[in-house]
């Protein structure tokens, strides 16, 4: 590192770590983070606050449902709640989990990972990022205070309170700012020969899809505000056509549901490589998947309107075909990850457990999502039944939040500079979360198949046992989330300090393994850089038995040979014949350490 840069850095730090800062200075430092790590930490704290807030709403709902099927407010009544409050809490639970927990935690990971992996360590346009964050915070608190019982704006012409629309408008502008600042962070100081590594490519693709999508939802919301529905008696626009409005909303909303998942997908692949100690089976294929996911995430939106009165061709192309197709890149991605992990004897700590459970959650959630689209695959209609909350929780809780947890268990200690406080608590968190949420998801799915409509407060008694199961699962998951927060807090305050590292381990290893997979596939160009930080060009990561034969290339083909047996026997020669082999500097593999 050049010395002038270091000096500037030190002076800045010194001013901010003034031993006797004024109280105003302290508050300002919290409000306005210039440093990417500080900003990520702030987002992470808020993500956890939202998890707690939205979780409490969720537990209140599940407790009510677990105790009463008649609509009598058994537990909630004692607390002074009304039936309307029950549905308000459902709104708050969904909105805050989505835009609070998932978005904010995802942003925290992305804002930390992008500057670190690229080696710029710079938060681009910090004012925009900070402003965006506080707008989201403001908007979400306003949502909680808005008394809206109508879930979201797509239920127009049901009239939400005006404050709900304003809150959503503010929150979405905030999210757009965060996205713009994140893309800027990914592009700032981009060198002419710099390329994006996998995690950054995923994040940028995600941000572009989301950025476009938010523009449509923002215009839908502003239309509402300016119409008689907005609550201000404005007549600038007439009441929007419901179908057009819903299409606009869901068009936006589709990138939105995948947002968190795509933010960490690249990191998840890195972690899979790290734990398997070998490069991903095909890096190039993952790149194709990124492109496919981008196109499809923008195309499947009509499946949310499957039983709306829309023309059949629209439904066929944008819901039926596209929704079937989007499973393809997911399946390919997980196939590649699982091939890479196969036979690798990884260390099963909280990160890997969460990662594998997340993949399982995505597969189950995705497979069971297909009957939701207009294909009456299973001879029953599950649209708007509990089947959907089942799908959502598979995708949001087990898959998206699960992969966040996976990443956080590895990344957060590096962020705090301290060792994880307790692996035991982490394991408890994993079991509680997976089992608890699994019970809830399974219960929801059964209820959906049995025809229970979602967003209800009364139902036939035959559904009640499943609600009791969901309630128990929810409390277990809630308890485990508390264990997570405690673990993180203890790590932050009391964890054993780690020696300061210039480069976190996951960044170096991730970059090295990704490079190695390009080398293996013969599409590594040494003229391109993926990061400014020095990292080994390739890593020797063969299982110990094979270390004795140094001529063998590091390759995941070893694995699939055993997988597919004789069929691909000839693959042995692959590594040797591959083009890039001729360049010896790329070849291996810890070469700069020797």
């Amino acid at each position: 590192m050049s010395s002038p840069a270091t000096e500037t850095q030190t002076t800045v730090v010194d001013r901010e770590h003034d031993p006797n800062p004024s109280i105003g200075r302290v508050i300002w430092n919290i409000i306005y983070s210039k440093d990417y790590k500080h900003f990520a930490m702030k987002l992470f704290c808020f993500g956890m606050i939202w998890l707690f807030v939205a979780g409490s709403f969720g537990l209140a709902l599940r407790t009510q449902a677990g105790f009463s099927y008649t609509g009598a407010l058994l537990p909630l009544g004692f607390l002074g709640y009304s039936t309307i409050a029950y549905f308000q809490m459902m709104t708050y639970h969904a909105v805050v989990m989505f835009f609070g927990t998932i978005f904010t935690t995802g942003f925290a990971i992305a804002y930390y990972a992008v500057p670190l992996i690229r080696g710029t360590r710079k938060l681009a346009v910090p004012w925009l990022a900070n402003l965006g964050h506080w707008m989201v915070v403001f908007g979400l608190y306003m949502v909680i205070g808005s008394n809206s019982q109508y879930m979201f704006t797509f239920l127009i012409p049901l009239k939400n309170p005006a404050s709900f629309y304003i809150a959503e408008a503010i929150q979405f502008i905030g999210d757009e700012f965060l996205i713009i600042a994140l893309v800027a962070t990914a592009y700032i100081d981009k060198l002419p020969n710099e390329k994006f590594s996998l995690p950054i490519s995923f994040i940028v693709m995600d941000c572009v899809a989301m950025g476009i999508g938010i523009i449509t939802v923002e215009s839908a919301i502003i239309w509402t505000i300016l119409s008689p529905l907005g609550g201000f008696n404005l007549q600038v626009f007439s009441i929007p056509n419901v179908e057009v409005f819903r299409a606009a909303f869901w068009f936006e909303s589709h990138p939105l549901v995948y947002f968190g998942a795509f933010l960490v997908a690249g990191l998840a692949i890195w972690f899979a490589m790290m734990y398997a100690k070998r490069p991903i089976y095909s890096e190039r294929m993952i790149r194709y998947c990124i492109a496919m996911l981008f196109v499809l995430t923008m195309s499947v939106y009509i499946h949310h309107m499957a039983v709306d009165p829309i023309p059949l061709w629209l439904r066929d192309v944008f819901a039926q075909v596209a929704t079937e197709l989007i499973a393809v890149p997911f399946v390919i991605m997980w196939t590649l990850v699982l091939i890479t992990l196969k036979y690798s004897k990884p260390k099963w700590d909280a990160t890997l457990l969460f990662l594998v459970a997340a993949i399982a959650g995505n597969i189950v959630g995705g497979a069971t999502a297909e009957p939701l689209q207009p294909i009456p695959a299973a001879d029953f209609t599950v649209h708007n039944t509990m089947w959907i909350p089942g799908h959502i929780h598979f995708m949001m809780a087990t898959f998206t939040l699960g992969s966040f947890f996976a990443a956080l268990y590895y990344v957060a200690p590096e962020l705090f500079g301290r060792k994880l406080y307790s692996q035991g608590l982490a394991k408890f968190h994993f079991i509680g979360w997976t089992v608890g949420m699994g019970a809830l998801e399974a219960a929801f799915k059964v209820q959906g198949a049995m025809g229970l409509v979602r967003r209800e407060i009364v139902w036939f008694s035959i559904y009640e046992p499943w609600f009791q199961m969901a309630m128990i699962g929810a409390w277990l998951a809630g308890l485990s989330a508390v264990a997570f927060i405690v673990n993180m807090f203890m790590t932050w305050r009391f964890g054993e300090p780690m020696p300061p590292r210039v480069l976190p381990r996951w960044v170096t290893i991730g970059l090295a393994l990704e490079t190695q997979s390009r080398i293996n596939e013969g599409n590594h160009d040494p003229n391109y850089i993926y990061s400014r930080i020095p990292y080994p060009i390739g890593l020797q990561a063969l299982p110990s038995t094979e270390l004795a034969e140094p001529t063998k290339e590091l390759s995941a083909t070893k694995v699939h040979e055993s997988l597919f047996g004789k069929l691909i026997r000839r693959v042995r020669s692959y590594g040797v014949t591959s083009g890039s082999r001729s360049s010896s500097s790329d070849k291996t593999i810890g070469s700069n350490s020797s």
Partner: protein
Amino acid sequence: MKKRTLLFAWTFILFLTVLVLEIVYTPYDYAGYIQNNNVGEGVAQADRPPIEGPYQVVMVTCEQWQFLFYPHVAGSPTATIVLANIPVLFIVRSMDVTHGFYVNTAGQWASQGFQFGVMAVPGYYDYVVWNFQPTAAAYTSGQSLYHVQCSEYCGVAASGLGHPWMDALIIVVPNNSTGIAMQRQMMDNNTPPILTGTLS
């Protein structure tokens, strides 16, 4: 085989699966009801399916917070009676906000095993066709009653008034003289018209 070939093959298989799903499912899709398909399919559509008859036609009007059938049981607009084994064409609309016309078999799902539904969107008509085919035993055990419920959240005013309590009843009677007589009597002769012939 090269790694590339392998991956290509795998991707190809996945796409092929999608294609097969498409081809297998397509017959369900356009027709609302398929004569050959014994179960019948409820597929919502924006356009009225071409009618080859015979079809019973029931108009469903949704509003906060009730379903109104036309024709309906005398004095009870939230109940209607249809004949078994003749497809029923439901024409669904909403007078105020978005609702969901959702039919299920309540407690009897295990023996009958289906539900179907369609959205009631203000400003639009939505069509759905279903052929009710209860077994002979179902009539006596009460399983020929189909519970209709609103499936799209449409607001709550107070406990007992609002979306969770918005429901209705479809009574299916056998397509024989007893059934028809019962339908006539309970519906004051105002039975669902049966369309025959080709109408498109």
